[in-house]
């Protein structure tokens, strides 16, 4: 029996290709399992992948950092979907033409204000009509080891595909006390992260950076709602100064509106947050109720 060299090479190459495809397939399956929960979809935003924009569709996007992302609640419980529901209730009236309202949460955990503009540009292809830009407090630092989507991923940087299998394997291993599974997750993460630097954490946040983000949102959508956070951050005075400065810069633009969550007493209720910062489902719903009128105002005008 003589097996040709070419046949051996072909079989090895096929084995490698099948293994690689199997990893991608498993990663997609993992995304489908977690994208409606605490994870992100294959393109790195929360909830299922958005369908093509339909005629007459009103798409509302929620951008920003930790507050927008909504750690600790399901994708459908974040502010984006609350805004969608409230807007849809007003838009979908008898006798009016059908206008489906959809929402997408493109918030990213741990992304600093300086990166908001780049992040909005990245997802501009989703063609939102309104972008709600939820600003994190100045000095907010996210020190979690995993920040979704995983910006350290080489695959994410190269292709825009956000791998989630390493995280899922790590967590599965931790829950089931399966060292092998957890190790496989860590190995996959190490391979994907290579020599990338550690993830950036939210730092300062200048008026110029936030202005750039609003301009990026203005370019990507026909209306922008800038949502400033409750004043519970480490530097509330700086937050107020930042928001005031940026609001002044867009004072003459009717397509940019500002909503200050900090002005509403209900946002300081103990039940609003899960851990003193991240909104719970009730907090997102309460914030959505404050944001929705501004969105409706932009749609109406």
């Amino acid at each position: 029996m003589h097996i040709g060299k070419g046949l051996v090479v072909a079989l090895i190459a096929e084995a490698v290709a099948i293994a690689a495809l199997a990893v991608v397939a498993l990663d997609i399956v993992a995304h489908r399992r977690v994208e409606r929960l605490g994870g992100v979809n294959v393109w790195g935003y929360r909830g299922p992948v958005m369908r093509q924009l339909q005629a007459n569709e009103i798409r509302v996007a929620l951008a920003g950092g930790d507050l927008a992302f909504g750690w600790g609640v399901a994708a459908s419980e974040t502010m984006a979907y609350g805004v969608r529901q409230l807007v849809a209730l007003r838009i979908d009236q008898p006798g009016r033409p059908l206008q489906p309202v959809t929402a997408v949460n493109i918030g990213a955990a741990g992304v600093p204000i300086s990166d908001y503009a780049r992040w909005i540009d990245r997802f501009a292809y989703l063609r939102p009509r309104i972008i709600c830009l939820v600003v994190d407090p100045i000095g907010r630092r996210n020190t979690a080891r995993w920040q979704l989507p995983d910006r350290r991923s080489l695959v994410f940087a190269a292709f825009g595909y956000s791998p989630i299998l390493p995280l899922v394997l790590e967590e599965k291993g931790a829950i089931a006390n399966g060292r092998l599974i957890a190790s496989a997750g860590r190995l996959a993460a190490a391979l994907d992260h290579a020599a990338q630097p550690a993830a950036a954490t939210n730092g300062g946040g200048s008026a110029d950076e936030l202005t750039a983000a609003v301009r990026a949102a203005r370019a990507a959508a026909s209306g922008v709602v800038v949502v400033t956070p409750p004043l519970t951050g480490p530097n509330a005075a700086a937050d107020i100064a930042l928001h005031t400065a940026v609001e002044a810069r867009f004072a003459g633009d009717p397509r940019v509106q500002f909503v200050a969550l900090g002005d509403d007493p209900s946002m300081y209720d103990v039940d609003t947050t899960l851990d003193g910062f991240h909104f719970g489902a009730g907090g997102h719903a309460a914030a959505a109720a404050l944001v929705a009128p501004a969105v409706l105002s932009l749609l109406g005008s």
Partner: protein
Amino acid sequence: MIYARRGVLGAAAIAAALAIVAWVSPAPDRVTDRDVYEATAARMIVPDCTDLHCFRVLVPWVLGRLPGSSDLRWKAYAVVCNTAAAIGVAALCPLFGLGRRGSALSAVLSAFGFGSLYTLHDAYTSDPLMFALGPVITLALLTDRVAAATIAGTIGVLAKEFAAAPLYLVAGWHALGRRFVPALRALAGGNLAFIVWVAFTLTLMLKFNYAWGGTDSANIATGAGIGPWLQRQSLRGVAAAMFNEFGALYVLAPVGLWIGSRELRRLALVAVPIAAVFAYVQQPDRALWNFHFLVVPLAALVLERVPPALAWATAGLFAVGNLRVGAQLPIGEISRIAIVLSVALALVGAAMALRRPAADRPALTPTGALA
């Protein structure tokens, strides 16, 4: 030359008969996959397409570029592919130890079997192409044309994933016979087809947001296609559907397995787990006809050993029965009688074939690649 002319005439007769059946077969009275296939034919890529059939693009892509009405194109495609399937099975038969009569009987049984005729009733499916590719790819592999088989399988998976199956089937058969080099060559071909299928599927999912939707087939852990299919039907319904799949062939094929060569038995044995997988992920009453190119020659081995009149009467009644259960022609009573008679004649034929002396059975190592 005479035989070649007979073959051409036979193929033309089969095509003409299938065309008539397709013409008179009523339109399905239920929701079919037509809309999905027509959308793919018209638009090539349908963003956000959510159906298993969205991924089976080859047939609609080709038919969508041809002139004529949609019904005409799809019915013509079903007729052409089922005729090709019959020719392919007939060409495969000599390798299984069958003579000219056995080959001709196989062609008729294949062309007028349940699976074939059902696709004339509901032509919006990739199945006819699979029915043709099964015997064609197997024939190419058994006659050492691995490259051609690989190309056919690799293109075929763009129509339906089954196109890779014959490559794995023959790889397994070679391996069972300890012929490891041809086994690895066929395996490499099957792997290439599989890789192309997976890569294409993932590309459609990621680039165009395709999804399998609510298809049962993707739920491997919860019964896939067979689980819900069994739940939806009564025991009688399941039994009837499974019987209709092969009808009289259920009587003939096991006897054919008994009197066939060892290599043919090996090939059938290797096909069992593959067929089980497809029966599990799809509806078994539809999936199993993909293996007609093995079941039909096994049955023909029996019919070849009985008087021609009995053999052709069995095949004819089998075909008439399937006009109702497959093509859905409104001939209920005639069909029932034909099915009963075909099974009765099959029993007689099987008994006669088994009573023939062992020396008269087909050689264990027949001609061609199976030798």
